[in-house]
């Protein structure tokens, strides 16, 4: 949150970022529900490689988002916020997440949408589990922080920085690759 604007109308200015969060969330939830990805059946279907809705939604979001965000970055309108990562963080954490993703059949975003959809296994089961799991991680975090999470650190780096090339040298081929993948999925009848 910005800390440059404090004094007089502190309250009003502090409130508006939260309101924007709510507005963006409503649009995001609306889209997720219309896409069908708030449903267990669709997410489990994706992981069973029978229904490719999740991948279609994600890849078209990534394609659209990437072009726009990097275009705005080139113009100096936005800054990137890449997250830190390491082999220990991203691969091990990612695989544990994947197991949970399949067993639960929702992820942290789509489960919020599933609750809005009226799905009680999400509300009574999934959310309770996620809160417990997050709390468990917070408890053991001091033991992991300087150990396994540091293994194979690659920092807050992007692919163009990694390959030391201009952003668009990565973006253009990647767009073609992702569009080709979507075309192939559609052609194959998924």
């Amino acid at each position, binding site marked *: 949150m910005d800390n440059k604007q404090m004094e007089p109308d502190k309250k009003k200015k502090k409130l508006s970022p939260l309101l924007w969060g709510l507005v*963006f969330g409503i649009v995001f939830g609306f*889209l997720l529900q219309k896409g069908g990805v708030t449903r267990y059946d669709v997410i489990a279907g994706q992981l069973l490689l029978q229904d490719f809705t999740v991948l279609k939604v994600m890849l078209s979001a990534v394609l659209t988002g990437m072009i726009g965000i990097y275009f705005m970055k080139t113009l100096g309108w936005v800054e990137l916020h890449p997250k830190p*990562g390491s082999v220990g963080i991203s691969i091990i954490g990612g695989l*544990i997440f994947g*197991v949970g993703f399949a067993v639960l059949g929702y992820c942290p975003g789509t489960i919020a949408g599933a609750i*809005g959809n009226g799905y009680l296994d999400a509300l009574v089961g999934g959310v309770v589990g996620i809160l*417990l799991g997050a709390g468990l991680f*917070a408890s053991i975090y001091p033991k992991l922080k300087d150990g396994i999470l540091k293994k194979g650190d690659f920092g807050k780096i992007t692919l163009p920085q990694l390959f030391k090339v201009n952003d668009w040298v990565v973006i253009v081929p990647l767009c073609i690759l992702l569009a080709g993948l979507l075309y192939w999925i559609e052609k194959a009848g998924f």
Partner: protein
Amino acid sequence: MNWLTETHWSPYIVGIGIGILSWLTFLISKKPIGCSTAFARTSGMIEKLFRGKKVEQKLYYKEVEPVVDWEWMLVLGVVIGALISALLSGDFRWQWVPSRWAATFGTAVFPRVIVAITGGICLGFGARWAGGCTSGHGISGTLQLAVSSWVAAISFFIGGIITALLLYNVIG
């Protein structure tokens, strides 16, 4: 306005919509879309109810404060947005057991809820370990071309696909 009451939109339209939404969150809020940190903050808030202020002394909650922030409101918004969409199309329904689950594992509520809690623990734990989820890494991180996010997102799907195939073909 028929499109608002349709049950499903093309996944490509939805994806493009989410992509455009991400432009706006970067431009207006200077933040990428993400969801799992909000669950960690909530977990901290609940723990505070039981154990009081000393929860704030935990190393993790010094880094991820247990407060309502932009992302927390985003997740709240997702519940509301999905509810509006489901009500408009008549797709809203109270449901305990999803049909794909029921076809393999039966319609009993208790097993589904226990498995959902177990899966949730893994998901919440893994999301915090990986530093993000399907939205924070899978969409927002990959679209920024973050190395951490591409590695994490691919790991999500490798872990997820293997587990789902085992669950439905070996156990189920």
